[in-house]
């Protein structure tokens, strides 16, 4: 049975939650004064969860985060260190390709952001019809850009160049950012060494087994503590740990200091993903910082069918190995080998073993094997993608 996804404010817990007959359990995001502090998984019995149960479980799950947040509130402090300065205005960019329904949900969510003068930008990547343009015209504030060269990274680069503001927040079209999302991202740019900020991404729904497997094997969330990453506390080649392109903001001068997104990577090219990771790695390697701030919350709709998730996992395998190949060959980063090995030993192999022994919360073997196949293809995919890009130029 499916998992209900609930978003609960600790100070306004309902006495009972019912009407959850379709679900066997609930994934609960716990917030204190709108800030996410933890998550937990609770069983649903007879379609309901009682208030007492929730309260205890949430306190247990959120642990110290909850109390730390509480004490910051009591003291009138903001947990992000830099609460005293004026925040810069930003551009929000959505890169999309032939997914008008998904885009609509995303734009609806963006309409709920408080108006701080942000620019909203939709980059329509190599569209096969006019559906996206028609949807965007319904939203007066949204600027529409058409980019005919295919590739997510191509669209991202276009957004970086065309934005009116110096900070560009990216969201995927299949995500729905929380109203506080943008403010939480931009307030972290106080430090000039921070070129990128990422946020917490939770599943929008877990209605199918495929979605649960996705959330189990490769969740977008990176925990509930704000973390500052730099090349001396995180190996840049392990940059996947800082977040993902579905929920990130960049400073535009990343173009000047780091260079643009590699257009031979990510969706729309043979490499299928990895473009965000690879830029994170270059940012860290050049000595700049990336902040992960869970206050910047977004909701992602995972793929619903097993087939789609299999393809996604395959794509992740290809993308990760393609971006590692780039780092090894172009940047000369020898530690890519170590990272690839430790990913296999610490994550892929244990997942395979769990799956073989059919442990609880294990992911079907075909999905894991798809990822491994992707890894094997990744280096060649990068080389062919690069070659293709060159011949086009």
């Amino acid at each position: 049975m499916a998992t209900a996804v609930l978003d609960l404010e600790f100070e306004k817990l309902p006495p009972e939650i019912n009407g959850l007959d379709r679900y066997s359990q609930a994934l609960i995001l716990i917030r204190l004064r709108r800030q996410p502090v933890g998550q937990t998984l609770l069983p649903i019995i007879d379609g309901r969860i009682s208030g007492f149960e929730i309260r205890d479980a949430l306190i247990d799950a959120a642990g110290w985060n909850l109390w730390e947040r509480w004490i910051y509130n009591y003291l009138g402090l903001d947990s992000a260190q830099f609460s005293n300065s004026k925040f810069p205005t930003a551009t929000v960019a959505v890169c999309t390709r032939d997914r008008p329904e998904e885009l609509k949900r995303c734009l609806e969510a963006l309409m709920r952001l408080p108006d701080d003068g942000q620019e909203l930008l939709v980059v329509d990547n190599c569209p096969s019809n006019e559906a996206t343009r028609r949807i965007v015209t319904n939203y007066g504030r949204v600027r529409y850009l058409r980019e005919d060269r295919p590739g997510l990274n191509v669209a991202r680069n276009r957004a970086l160049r065309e934005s009116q503001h110096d900070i560009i927040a990216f969201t995927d079209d299949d995500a729905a950012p929380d109203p506080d999302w943008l403010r939480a991202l931009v307030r972290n740019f106080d430090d000039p060494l921070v070129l990128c900020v990422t946020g917490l991404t939770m599943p929008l729904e877990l209605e199918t087994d495929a979605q649960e497997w996705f959330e189990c094997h490769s969740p977008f969330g990176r925990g509930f503590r704000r973390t500052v990453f730099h090349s001396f506390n995180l190996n840049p080649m392990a940059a996947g740990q800082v977040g993902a392109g579905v929920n990130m903001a960049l400073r535009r001068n990343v173009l000047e200091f780091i260079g643009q997104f590699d257009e031979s990577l990510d969706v729309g090219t043979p490499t299928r993903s990895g473009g965000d990771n690879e830029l994170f790695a270059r940012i860290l390697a050049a000595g700049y910082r990336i902040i992960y701030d869970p206050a910047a919350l977004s909701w992602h709709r995972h793929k619903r069918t097993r087939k789609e998730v299999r393809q996604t996992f395959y794509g992740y395998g290809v993308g990760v190995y393609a971006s590692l190949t780039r780092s090894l060959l172009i940047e000369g980063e020898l530690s890519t080998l170590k990272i690839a090995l430790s990913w296999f030993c610490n994550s892929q192999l244990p997942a395979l073993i769990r799956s073989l022994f059919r442990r609880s919360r294990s992911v079907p073997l075909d999905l894991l094997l798809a990822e491994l196949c992707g890894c094997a293809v990744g280096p060649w995919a990068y080389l062919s993608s690069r070659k293709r890009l060159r011949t086009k130029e």
Partner: protein
Amino acid sequence: MNRDMPTISIIIPTHNRSASLLRTLDALRVQTYPLQQVEVLVVADGCSDGTVEGLRHYTAPFALYFIEQTNQGAAAARNHGAAYAKGQLLLFLDDDVEPTPPLIKSHVRAHQNRPSRVVIGPYPPVLQGRADFINIFMRTWSETKFLAMRQPSHRYTYRDLLSGNLSLEAELFTRLGGFDPAFRSCGGEDYEFGVRLIKAGVPFTFASDALCYHYNHETTDLDRLFERMRREGHSDVLIGLRHPELRPTLPIAHIEAYCASLRYIMRTLALTLAFRLPKAGDLLAIPLRRVLDLLERIRLRGPWLWLCRGLRGYWYCRGVAEELGTPKALNGFLRNNPNCANIDATESEIDLHDGLEVAEKRLDEERPAGVRIRYRQQSVGRIPPQPGAERLRGVHLRRILATEFAKPLLKALAVEGTTNEFINADHLLADFKRAVLCSTHAGDVTDHALYLERPNKKHIQKNQLI
């Protein structure tokens, strides 16, 4: 003194960096402050690269003077410049910074209506693309420092007194006796001046808009870094001799902090080599220095950082050894602390139950060196007097409570009950009591830290399973 538009003397000590100096002077031409109120004094400290000839032909829109002296170090050069300065304010700049146009105006504004203070401006490294590891390391250090000083809740210490972009009234500078020229070329005279400023109760102010860019990537490399560590060893001993109460705060008292692992073995090794076998140590340091280059070429950051730290620690110890001579002298230096009683030990006590604003106001009025904090009957903690740090101000309180006393404060609030008007605060505290107090034996409620950590770890494991 003309408070609205004071005259200002900019003092730039320089040593064989004529091109860099010209960049600094060029940037001063386009200041937003009226230049007839400005004079610039360049003190050429034993220059042999034509710096002085270059200045002779430089036409400036402000009064420009240059003073030559034999090589005596930056401290003497700054004092020398200050002795000739006619301005009401002195602004010290380094010769490798590039001021932004509002620099002078921002310094002047920071002094306005608030006499007798030092104003420190940021001079972060100019940002660039791919940098080598050492510049990343240095850049991270300085940006972290300036970011911390930009927080209103920052508690200043003498190590915040950086002299590359610093202003104060000429009268105050003279009254405190200026920089100590005995530091000569080993640097650290700014820290020592900082100690005297702190002791005299001079407030520090950070002016974020008084910005310069630092071109230190032109002059920083590993060899210079190690040389600087060696000089820092010298200067820290000098600081410790002049201000014995600071000895426990000096890096020499915490050498092991330079080593990421095997701390105490590495500490002993560095000290033994530096004090007893300096020749062998230097011989070993040369090939290890080459290993750093190799590690950078294959971009292995972890081992690079580890080795770089170790070598920095070694060269720092070498500097200390050259100044003190024998291990016995080092032990004496660290142990004999004749002026312990000299530590400024005024402590007060605040009760947070009176309200945070009241507590802050009391700190502002009393300015104690340390404070005992309680919430009604419950002790929350003690901020001990900290040698070399400014006395406490109200604005420090909340940040310190949040970072150092969060757990005891929560416990005190839970036990005493709170009177503030937060929604559902009573419920929260009831939960906290249950979560915290019930999860342990009734007896050991005193050691709050222990049982708060436990559920947290459990929680992390649980989260990973999802």
